[in-house]
């Protein structure tokens, strides 16, 4: 482990984060957008864990926060999919660009 520093982990998580953001900005399908959001959350987890491991090894805050993030991600996905499915039932498609009923 001597040759792998915290920077390595942070760079990986940064790349993952911005990939997720890119996906969130460009995908048209609501489910793929949701998947991008999962990437974003996951990159945060890596950060938490890496910081915990390398900077504050005396306790486990980073790990616990990562766990909570996983829990929240599960919650988010459950609710988001429920919304997506009921939306799909109503309008028979889940294209984010066409779901703009609420505009001005």
């Amino acid at each position: 482990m001597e040759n792998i520093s915290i920077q390595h982990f942070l760079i990986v998580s940064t790349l993952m984060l911005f990939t997720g953001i890119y996906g969130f900005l460009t995908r048209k399908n609501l489910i793929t957008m949701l998947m991008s959001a999962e990437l974003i959350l996951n990159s945060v987890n890596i950060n938490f864990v890496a910081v915990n491991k390398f900077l504050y090894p005396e306790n486990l805050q980073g790990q616990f926060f990562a766990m909570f993030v996983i829990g929240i991600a599960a919650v988010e996905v459950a609710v988001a999919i429920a919304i997506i499915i009921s939306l799909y039932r109503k309008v028979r498609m889940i294209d984010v660009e066409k779901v703009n009923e609420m505009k001005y």
Partner: protein
Amino acid sequence: MEQIVFYILASMIVVFSVLTVTTRKILRGAVYLLTVLLATAGLFFLLNFNFLAAVQLTVYAGGIVVLIIFSIMLTSHVNEKLESTGNKKKFFSFIAVLAGALICISTILDYSFKEKSGIEIDTSMNKIGKDLLSYGDGGFVLPFEVISILLLAAMIGAIVLAKRETQN
């Protein structure tokens, strides 16, 4: 050895992340996402966070991805190709994302982290369970309970939302 494993996992994460957000086939996207999550779990193993890695595998890989795949099944055909996005939108998003990534990475590389080596992190089940349910210093019982209520609320909410409206 660990170095090699890290680079393999890291490159997997980056490559499959990119594939997840660019593939035209939605089911493949889900599988790529699963790969990313698995590789992340591998990173956690590498760092000795065994319990967290297990949680990652069960909840993310086993729960969330399966849920996503289910919803894909419900809303689209397996081989359905996604419409591609406009190039203009892709271009501007790419510029923004690239700028953000460069800023972050350069900052990370510039910053001198004060790593503490020599202290072995204790990630045994024993310690995790005690910390999670203790209410003293370093205890996490309050967020634990809060998250349990959140899960309950989300469950009810998801059921209500997804339930078919009753016919009049």
